[in-house]
């Protein structure tokens, strides 16, 4: 699968990738009572300094690039679903919190780990191409390339099915 899209690089004021973005920064606990996925998008990242207006800027098909340990903290599913609601096509991070990664895969949000993502020299607004089978990521604005860990078979199967519980229907048939 090839994913092409405009990127949002989650950097701080000095332009460095932000590490340890936790689930309260992604989807704050004051919104936890919200259960309708369509309502969740507008709160995505609204507790991350400098990114409070993310939901109004993001468009369907956009890609997020983040630092280490993205999605650490609680197990709340909303921290994944808020990006699905916005139509985010892919999240690339240097690494993910374990539960976040599990939740993202289970709900069919594509996630990729690219430890050397800085090599892309990507700026918000650049367009990148990602080949999920090989893990190759290309920055179309400056031609630089980096390898991520490709999707595992499991991740691809769940993604193709549209989520873990949809996948269960397939393997029983």
């Amino acid at each position, binding site marked *: 699968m090839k994913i092409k899209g405009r990127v949002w690089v989650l950097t701080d004021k000095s332009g460095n990738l932000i590490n340890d973005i936790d689930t309260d920064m992604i989807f704050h606990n004051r919104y936890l009572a919200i259960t309708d996925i369509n309502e969740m998008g507008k709160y995505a990242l609204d507790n991350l300094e400098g990114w409070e207006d993310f939901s109004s800027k993001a468009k369907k098909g956009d890609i997020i690039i983040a630092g280490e340990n993205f999605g650490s903290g609680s*197990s709340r*599913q909303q921290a994944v679903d808020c990006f699905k609601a916005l139509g985010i096509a892919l999240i690339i991070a240097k690494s993910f919190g*374990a*539960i976040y*990664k*599990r*939740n993202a*895969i*289970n*709900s069919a949000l594509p996630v990729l780990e690219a430890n050397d993502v800085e090599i892309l020299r990507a700026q918000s607004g650049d367009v990148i191409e990602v080949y999920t089978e090989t893990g190759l990521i290309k920055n179309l604005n400056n031609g630089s390339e980096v390898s991520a*860990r490709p999707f*595992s*078979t*499991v*991740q691809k199967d*769940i993604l193709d099915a549209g989520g*873990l*519980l*949809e*996948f*269960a*229907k397939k*393997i*029983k048939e």
Partner: protein
Amino acid sequence: MGKTIIEKIFENHTEDEVKPGNIIWLDIDTRTARDFGGPNVVKKLYEYYGEDVQVDDPSRTFFTFDTVAPAKTIPYANNQHFCRQFAKKRGIKVFDVDSGIGSHVAIEKGLCWPGSTFVGTDSHLNILGAVGAFGQGMGDADIAFAFKTGKTWFEVPSTIKIIFKGKPYKFPVTAKDLTLFTLRQLGSKGALGRAIEFYGEVIDNMSLFERITLSSMVTEMGGIIGFITPDEKIIEHFKKVKNNPEIKPVIADDDAEYEKVIEIDISNLKPQIACPPKPDNVKDVREVEGITVDSVFIGSCTNGRYEDISLAAEIFKRFKVKEGVMAKVVPSTREVFGRLLKDGTLDILYEAGVIVSNPGCGGCASGQIGMTGKGEVQISTSNRNFKGKQGDGDTYLASPVVAAVCAVTGEITDPVEFLKQKGVL
């Protein structure tokens, strides 16, 4: 290349290539849900697969009601009964509110066994590493999937080998002190996303209840699971309850590849205590002696075994609970409760002024017993002291012996000095 314990267990339960970092499909021998999480598992099964949904294998699927047992609120009663009705229609056995903590019931009844795979909605299910089984707590979507398919996906973790050096501890120092001391060395991220294997003379000497204590707190070290290679006694137990002479331990290869090896010297192990508000905020008990104690809670999946409560009874048969202190004991299972009842230990606890409840999780899950009020200082034998976990008060984590001594003196007290002064040691 040799394999670690988790790699060998996984290889016996998958067709995928098992190596650290790979995500594999894992066959799950036993699938469970408790009264916390279980109702959402059932709701998800109905939502995705309809009212007539069947599970993959009812004979390997169980409910274990342990968090609020028996239900103390109407919503909990509704949730439990919702699961009961689902289970009854499908021939799924329910270990109901009289049974006790699910992970302990699994060990006693043989729902797990060395080398088996086991999932449920309890984040401390990795306790099963104490008998060399793979146990894992998961969210409701994952467990619904396991109920429906008998499988789960899992990223193979690398393994850290921990070797304890030095002479084994002896009373009044216990496995809980060793566990807290290990957490003190590793910190809350020391085993993040990794499996652990524990070795050393002290481990070889540990009985089941002590192994349970150590494995139960790998969660607090950030780990996936902590394995202890089962000894002959543990294998015999499972052969007997499973009526299966074939049960064997899964043992790591001599040339297994570990991410790192950590040696921990325990020659001078002293009673340990985890101060609020984090389990890894561990100190020697002596460093915090004198703080007034309002209540103690002895129980939980970490320290609710028969032998744990017997250790506390060693103190309570000599000294009474200080007036004004609440001492609460919650046996982990019905079997534990029965042994305490029949051999007179409950008598000792009663005479000393201890409150004993029916088996279950107790205060850890906002359950029936063990909650604290604002400003209350509690010594708890459980595994978490995060703010609000066991009520509004301040929770210190310690061994059953430390907790019992604190109940007697009404302040944080090192049992070694106390017992020496009283001529017991």
